[in-house]
Structures are given as C-alpha cells and as structure tokens.
C-alpha cells in the first residue's frame, strides 16, 4: 500500500484547490508543519475505488465545524437555513468529486475506475492529533481550517 508521497501531494493540492474553489469559493494551501494538541470533533469521509491499474481508498478527515462552513459556502446559505446533515453531506460530496478528479490526474482519463458510495464516520476527538502526527495523512488548510487527506492505493496485478 502507498500513502501520499511527495509527487502525489502536488496533484492532491491542485485537485483540492479546484474542488474547494469550484464548489465553495474556499482556498487551499499545504501545511506540512501543522500541529495542534487540542482535541477536535471531526468526521472522516471515505470512498473506495477500483480500476485495472490500482485500487484503494481516499479519505478526508475534517473538523465538524468546518463541514458546516463548507455546506454554507456550497449552498450560499446561512447556518440556520441548512438541513441537519448538510455538513456531513458536503464533506461526502467533496471526497466523491476530489477522488474522481484525483484518479484522472494520477492515472489519466483512459483508465476506468469504479467508485463506491462515499461514507462518513465520526472520529474520536482525542485521536485527531495522532492522525496527522503519524504521517499517514497530509495536512492542508482550507481557509485556515485543517483537513487531513489520505490516498491509499495498491497497484493491481
């Protein structure tokens, strides 16, 4: 299994920038030195993919507060106008769109990939720091809010 390597980071930054800007007018930057000890309530959105040359999962872990801000920006609505699950649905859609785009940038548009339906799960606030300290996730800042991104792919035989 390969997690995000430096060449992938460049592609991921480009893809995340286009997706967040296109969907929500939010700007993304890399933050390799990010650290914070405060526990954060967050969600992990995950999508699986499989194709001839690779299969794996793509994940984005995001603070719950940021998910809600993301939904507000996507819909151009105030917080009190949003349905209860809007933040979670916004993160799911971003992971869905970013994964499709990322695969085409990494493997080309000749390759056909099947994507799973995106899913979300809560992450224990106390585990937040261990996720980015462990090095499995790359950290990006979206309008100053950290998100953690991981692409795990195995090359198919």
């Amino acid at each position, binding site marked *: 299994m390969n997690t995000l390597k430096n060449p992938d980071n460049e592609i991921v930054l480009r893809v995340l920038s*286009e*997706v967040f800007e*296109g*969907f929500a007018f939010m700007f993304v930057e890399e933050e390799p030195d990010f650290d914070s000890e405060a526990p954060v309530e967050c969600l992990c959105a995950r999508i699986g993919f499989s194709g001839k040359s690779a299969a794996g999962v793509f994940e984005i872990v995001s603070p719950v507060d940021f998910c809600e801000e993301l*939904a507000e920006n*996507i*819909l*151009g609505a105030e917080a009190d106008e949003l*349905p209860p*699950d*809007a933040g979670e*649905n*916004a993160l*799911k*859609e971003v992971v*869905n*769109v970013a*994964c*499709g*785009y990322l*695969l*085409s940038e990494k493997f080309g*548009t*000749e*390759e*056909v*990939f099947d*994507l799973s*339906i995106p899913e979300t799960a809560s992450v224990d606030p106390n585990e937040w720091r261990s996720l980015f300290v462990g090095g499995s996730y790359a950290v990006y800042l979206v309008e100053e809010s950290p998100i953690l991104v991981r692409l795990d792919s195995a090359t198919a035989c």
Partner: protein
Amino acid sequence: MGYNVLIVDDSPIIRKMVAKTLKISDLNISGYHFAENGRQALTVLEENWIDIVFADINMPEMNGMELIEEMVRRDLMATIPVVIISTERSRERIDSLREMGISAYLHKPFVPEEFARVVRDLLH
C-alpha cells in the same frame, strides 16, 4: 408555462445546489422534482411531465447509466434530454454515455454560467 425539471443525485447537497443554480439562472423553470437514484427517478418520470433530467452516475440502487438505459427503452421517456453531472472523467465511460444519447455532460464541480448555457441551449 415553465419547464419541469428532474434532479437525480444521491447527495442532497448536490440536489439543492443544482436547483439553486437553476433558480438564479433566469431560466423559465416552474416545477422542480427530485430523486435519490435511478429507480426513484423512473417513478417520477412515470407520474409527471418532465422536460429535462439532470442525473449523477454513481448512485445506489440504480445508477445513472442504468437509468438512461431504462429511459431509452420506454418510448415516452426516450426523447427527454438528459444532462449528466458527475465526477466521472474516464473518456471511455463518457463516450459510452454519449453513445447512449445523453444531451450534455458536465463535470462536478460545474461552473454555474456553463451550466446555465447548456440548459438554455437544450430548452430553447
């Protein structure tokens, strides 16, 4: 009298976003219908007059490609314009959709101005 649209996507946020884009696009839309997957969409199509369908591909139960196959088989639905709005970027799959008769293909996230232009061209 305005047009009736059907928006098919398992993501509630995309359904709202497409509807909102239509509302601000100065298009003459009078009826908005929604479905979470292809199966629900077929029910809406059977029960309502729909002028244009906006559909995702990757959906549970019945995906966008299966929905189009079903629409093509049914005389009353076969001529309704279908705009696919998807994350799909595989050339082979997009070519297959065009061969199946879709009217337009837009990548997510779409640009509202491009979206409005495509819809205007199809409806007028």
